[in-house]
Every structure is written in structure tokens, then in C-alpha cells.
């Protein structure tokens, strides 16, 4: 009996390891391919296609990306700035909202929850949003256009609320109150301290959204100095494909050189790099924050 059990366990373990290894390879190989392609000379990519190990080593791609270091660096700066401010402000607002909504003694709790929840089901759509941002809030070409839209994400507020509700026992509020703590002190000294995993999770989500955002730049920013990194690089590639595809019928001819395959790959690396380093620091909170937060209360 015991041996049989062990046998099965081992079988299961073996199976699990194989699946996980295959799975992670499937995730890793494309990434390795990009890294290798970014280090291959462009001619070699066109001639022989992609290889896991560069057929002809070359730093051409990175050279092109950083030909105008000021442009890339400025875009980096914009993205860093929006990510930092957006995440900090967003976390503050969302934990506040979550805390308030988690308090059972808040009278309009349901109304507000519903109001927030409602926007996840019905949105105005792109055109009204665009009109709102440009005509009424006058956010064209301002950092506000990049930061404001992401500050309050309904999904993350609900996640936060549920997390706080399960992490902070109801009774704690009462005892804190008896000890003379005000609402804000409870939020600051108790709720925030106890919801670290939730905050880390929501924070990572937020940081990722801000880091990966290109759509806001695309819609609201005309000033190239305020392009986010993702959009700056995306735009370089897009211009190339525009010239390649539309140019034939329009006679559009631009003097600038088109980015080559290796350049595109180098860009991908440049963009993904930094946010990759964020994962290991937050990862340990991640599973906990997500699972507890996901239990609907």
C-alpha cells in the first residue's frame, strides 16, 4: 500500500515536473529567440531566419535604438514618471476606496460599490471618452492624460475591498476605535499594515498597466517629448510598416531609414527589461494577494 502510494506520487511528481518544464520552456523560448534576434545582424535574419543562437553576432539593433539616446531616454523618463506617480497615487486612492467600502458601518456602501461596479459593465465607448478628455478636461498633451485614466480601476478597487475585508477582522476596527483611533488612523496604521500582500498585488498590476500603456499616448499626446516609452518604440516600428504597406499606393517616400528586424527585437528587449526586475521583489506577495483578494465576500 505504502509503496503503491509512493509510486503514484512519484508518477504525479514526474508528470507535474514535465508539464511545468515544458510549459516554462514554451514561455522562455520565444523570449530567448527575441534576445538572440536582437543580437543578430539583420542580413543574417533576412537570409537565414531566426535562430536560438545568433548566426552572425551584431549589436547593430541596439546601436540603432540608441542612436538618439535622448529620445529613448526621454521616453523612459516619461514612462518612469507616469508609472511612479500613477502607482503611488493610484494605490492611495484605491486602498482608500477599498477601505471605505469594506467598512460595514458606511451607509452608502452598496450604492457606491454598485456605482463603481456598474462602470465595468457599461462604458461610454471610445468617442465619448475622447471628447471628455480633450474638450472638457483639456488634457491633450499633458501628463494628466497619461496618469488620470488609470488611477481608479474598478476591478482593482473591488479586489482591494475584498482583500481588506478578509484580511482585517471587523472587530479590529471596534477595538481601535475604543483605543481612540480615528478613521484615518485606522486606515493608516492598521488597514494598510495588514493588507501588504493586497497592496503589492494591486501595485504590481497598476505599475504594469502604466508601464505597458501606449494607448493614452497614442490618443492624447501630440508632443513627441511626452511620448511614453512603449508608444515611442511602437511608433517607430509602425511608421516603418506604414511606409512599407501604404507607401506603394501613395508615393509617400520618407528619407529616414526603416528599422530592421534586429532593431525591432532590440526595442522589445529595451522595453520589457526593467519591469522584469520588478517581479522577483513582489512575487512572494503575489499569490497570497491574488487568491485572498479573489474570494468574493
Amino acid at each position, binding site marked *: 500500500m505504502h509503496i503503491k502510494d509512493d509510486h503514484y506520487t512519484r508518477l504525479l511528481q514526474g508528470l507535474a515536473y514535465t508539464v511545468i518544464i515544458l510549459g516554462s520552456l514554451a514561455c522562455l523560448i520565444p523570449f530567448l529567440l527575441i534576445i538572440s534576434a536582437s543580437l543578430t545582424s539583420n542580413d543574417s535574419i533576412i537570409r537565414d531566419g531566426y535562430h536560438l543562437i545568433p548566426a552572425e553576432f551584431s549589436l547593430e539593433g541596439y546601436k540603432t535604438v540608441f542612436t538618439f539616446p535622448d529620445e529613448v531616454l526621454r521616453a523612459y523618463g516619461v514612462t518612469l514618471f507616469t508609472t511612479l506617480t500613477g502607482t503611488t497615487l493610484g494605490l492611495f486612492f484605491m486602498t482608500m476606496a477599498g477601505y471605505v467600502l469594506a467598512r460595514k458601518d458606511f451607509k452608502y456602501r452598496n450604492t457606491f460599490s454598485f456605482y463603481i461596479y456598474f462602470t465595468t459593465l457599461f462604458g461610454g465607448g471610445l468617442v465619448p471618452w475622447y*471628447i471628455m478628455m480633450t*474638450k472638457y478636461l483639456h488634457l491633450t498633451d499633458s501628463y494628466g492624460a497619461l496618469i488620470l485614466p488609470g488611477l481608479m480601476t474598478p476591478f482593482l478597487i473591488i479586489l482591494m475591498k475584498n482583500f481588506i475585508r478578509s484580511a482585517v477582522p471587523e472587530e479590529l476596527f471596534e477595538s481601535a476605535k475604543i483605543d481612540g483611533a480615528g478613521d484615518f488612523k485606522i486606515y493608516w496604521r492598521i488597514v494598510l499594515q495588514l493588507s501588504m500582500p493586497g497592496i503589492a498585488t494591486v501595485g504590481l498590476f497598476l505599475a504594469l498597466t502604466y508601464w505597458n500603456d*501606449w494607448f493614452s499616448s497614442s490618443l492624447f499626446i501630440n508632443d513627441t517629448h511626452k511620448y511614453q516609452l512603449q508608444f515611442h518604440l511602437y511608433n517607430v516600428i*509602425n511608421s516603418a510598416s*506604414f511606409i512599407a504597406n501604404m507607401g506603394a499606393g501613395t508615393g509617400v517616400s520618407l528619407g529616414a531609414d526603416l528599422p530592421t528586424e534586429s532593431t525591432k527585437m532590440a526595442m522589445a528587449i529595451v522595453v520589457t527589461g526593467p519591469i522584469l526586475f520588478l517581479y522577483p521583489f513582489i512575487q512572494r506577495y503575489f499569490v497570497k494577494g491574488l487568491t485572498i483578494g479573489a474570494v468574493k465576500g
Partner: protein
Amino acid sequence: MSKNARKKPLAVLTALLAVSLLTAGCGGSNGNNKEAAGNTDSGTNNTAAATEGTATATAEPGIDTSKKVELQFYMLGDAPKDLPAIEAEVNKMAAEELNTTVKFNYTSWTDWDQKYKLLLSSGQAIDLIFTADWTQYASYAKRGAFLALDDLLPKAAPELQKFVPESMWEDVKVDGKIYTVPATYKEYVTNGFVWREDLRKKYNLPQPTDLASYEAYMDGIRQNEPDMMPASLNSDIGNNLHYIYTELNKMVGALPYGMGVKYESPTEVYSYWGSDEQKEELKVMKRWQEKGFIPKNVLNIKDTMQDPVTSGKAASMFGDNPTRFNDMVMKISTTHPEWELGYYPFGKTTGYATPVHPVHNGFAIPKSSKNPERALAFYEKLVLDKRYNQLTEYGIEGKNYTVEDGYYKLLGTSQTNGFTREGMNGWAWRNPEYMLFDKGFDGVKAIFDELDKIQKPDLFLGFAEDYSSYQAEKAALEQVEKQYLFPLEAGLVEDIDKGLETFMQKAKQAGLEKIQAEWTKQWNAYTAEKGIK
């Protein structure tokens, strides 16, 4: 109490629903109202300004420039790096002469079509915006996005009105009104064979002049240079095989939905899809596929069309326009000076070539503009005033470019210079009298001169399709095309007859007949209106 509490959210819900429905349903009319409001606004502004203006002398006859304004100028594509310097220079002059400054805005090429739509539909104040056939000029004009210029032109830009030939004003009219200022520079974007002349000479191959000789050339390449692709192709089969083939077959433009119209008989509309003519095309492509001219994985190739040729991977292109051919020649001349490229315009095969239609490049004033008069007056300067024109086309002389023996010369390289030739994408305000060309462009001019001898007008680009009545069918048909037609057009289907039959059947299910009937009706109305026979 508990009853009340339960009712409250419900009330909120219904209220919210009602509001959201209202805003969703009336989005269109709302926008119009706002536009209308904006117009009356600017109207009162103008009259107010006019009464003020009577006291001070106006600089420009016809329009009132007493109030300082900033024009919002919208262009497609990416701004050149030196734009701020150019903008400052332009504004120095414009402030003095028109009491106005201009803000140049660029959409970037990323999702430009969506942004273009938003710019025009959101009603934000824009004074000048680029138009072209490929930005759906006529259909936006039909929907009332632009201001009619007929009455404005003689008042605000009389010189410009004289400068643009009467026939061009006629050509850009939509429903009898002018909505855009067309560019007067004549160019050809018609296709032509592109091939490696050095290889042709080396193996003594025939020069591509028509379909048969082109095929023979590719045959020769296949035999002598087995490692090379005979032709550069990518997944955009429709544009890079099919439409080039039909251009060679004297078809009118790139017509959608398998519509067929011959250049010589523009009023005879037929269904190209399913015709013997199409079967002939598919047979040719099948043969090319079998001979190895079209790669098996062609639908997955995402390279640009030019790259494989300039890098020596491919030996020809089925078709490209003269300007871009010239770009390739220039590129090769620095990287592989020992190579040679040949070009044979289709015009010489078909017997005619069409210069671009006047709607191909232009500028319109959106309905939302607060200063339409000033905008037009400024645009007149941009086209007709040499200082404005050359500054915005070529940058600052001595810093961005120099003129040597009458030729334009870029200073430094395209990487180091912040303003390359036509760096502001100012194709629309090109003025042939002030244009500067770099030396390499002589090749294109030679081709243009040849085509000038056989030119015939392109009468058909003014056609604006209104697909509102078959939008759903259109989307469904696009899917069917991708799935069933592209493989056929790439010669990837074994049995052509059966493949075509399946495609036609699926297309009909998607609503092909309805689309074709409606399109034919619109086409006939257009040719009748323009008197095309």
C-alpha cells in the same frame, strides 16, 4: 426602511441606464449640436471681431486679422525633430503678416486612421487638416466633417484660387462643393516592374515588359540563382499580387468587393470575382506557385516588399511606383554599388498612365474650426509664399539643407539631420515652382516624362463609397476574402475551379450580391454626375 433600501439601487440603476442609453443613442446628434453651437460661437466671435476691426486698419484685404489667433494644424505621420525651430520661424512671419500663430500637430502613423476619425468626430477646434483619397476625403466631406470653401476662397485666398487650375477645383468637388485645397504637383504612383538589371544581363534574360516576359525573367532567375527568391512578396497578397495584376490588365484602380471596371469602359460594371478573367489570373498565380516564384509560406511573410530586394534576397518586384523604385536605387547605390536595378512602367504596356487625382493630397478646414478665414489665408501663404513654402518643405537653408547647382542637398545624414526633405510630410502644399529635388530624383523625373507622353486622367478617385447600408455584410465579406480568396490569389489552392466555387458561395452567403448591387448603383451615379463615359 428595508424596502426603501432595496429600491434605491434599482432607481439608481434605471437612472444610470437611461443616461447611458441617451448618451449612446444620441452620440451622433449630440456631436452635431455641439458643432453647430461651435459654429454660431465662432460666428459671433467673428462679428464681434469685425466691429472691433473697423477701427484698426486690416493688413490683408478681404479678411479681418485684427484679433490674434492660434491656428491648430493637423498632419499625419511623425513630426520631424527640428519642428520647433521651423514652427518658430513660421510663426515669426505669420504673426507679422496675418496676426496669427500656428501649432503644428502630428498624429504619428500609429493608428492614424482612428485618430483622424476622432479628431473629426469629437468636434475639437481644428483649423486645418490633411486630406487624401486614402484618408477617405470624399466620404468625410459627404458626412459634413469639412467646411465648404466655395465662398471662403475668393475672400480669404484669392491668389490660391487662381493658382489651382479650375479643372482641379472641379475634380475635388463633392456634391457640387469644394471641401479641400488640392496639391498641384503632378506625380505618378502607378506601378512598374522592378528587377535586377545586372543579373538580367549576366544570364542574358529577357527584359520584363509584360506578364510573359516577366515570367520568363523569373524563370531565368530560378534556374541560375536557385538561392534567390525570383520575386519579393509578402502576406499582403491583395495589394502585392492581385491589384498589380489587374492594373496591368487595365482595370480601374483598386476596386473593392471584386467589382470590375475597365479603364476604357468605365460605365460597364461587372463582377470580376467568378469571371473568366479572374480564372485566368488564378491560373497564372497557380503556375507561378508551382514554378516556385511564390513561396509556400507567403501568407506568413511580414517583411517589407523592398527589403528583400535591397538586401539581395529577391531578384524582382512585380510592381512598385517610380518614387519608391528610386528610393531603392539610392539605397543600393551606397550598400551594393555593383548591383543595378531596372524599371519598366506598366503605362508602356497598357498604353496609358494616370497621374494622381487632385484629391490625392490636400488640406481641408474642419467644421469645428474657429478661424476658417485665417486658416485659409495662412494656407495660401504656405503654398504661394516661397519663404513659407521652402521653410516647411526643406527646413532652414544652411542648417538642414543646401542648394547645389539647383539640386537639393541634405546636410549630414537622415539620422543626424533633424529635418529631411519634405520632413513635415508637406506633400499637400508642394508648389511645383518652388520644389527642390535631390540629384537622385532625376531618374524619377525621366520616368515621369515618359509617362507624361501617354498620360490620361484618373477620373475615378473622386468616387466616395457610402457603405452605411451594408456595413455588416462588408465586415463579413472581408473575413471570407482573407480565408478563401487570399490562398487562391497566392496560387496555394490545388483545384482552382473548386476553390473559386467555394469562395463565391461563401461570399454570397456573406451578402456579396447586395454589396455589389449597391456599389454598382453608387458607381453609376458617380459616373453620371461627373459625365464620365
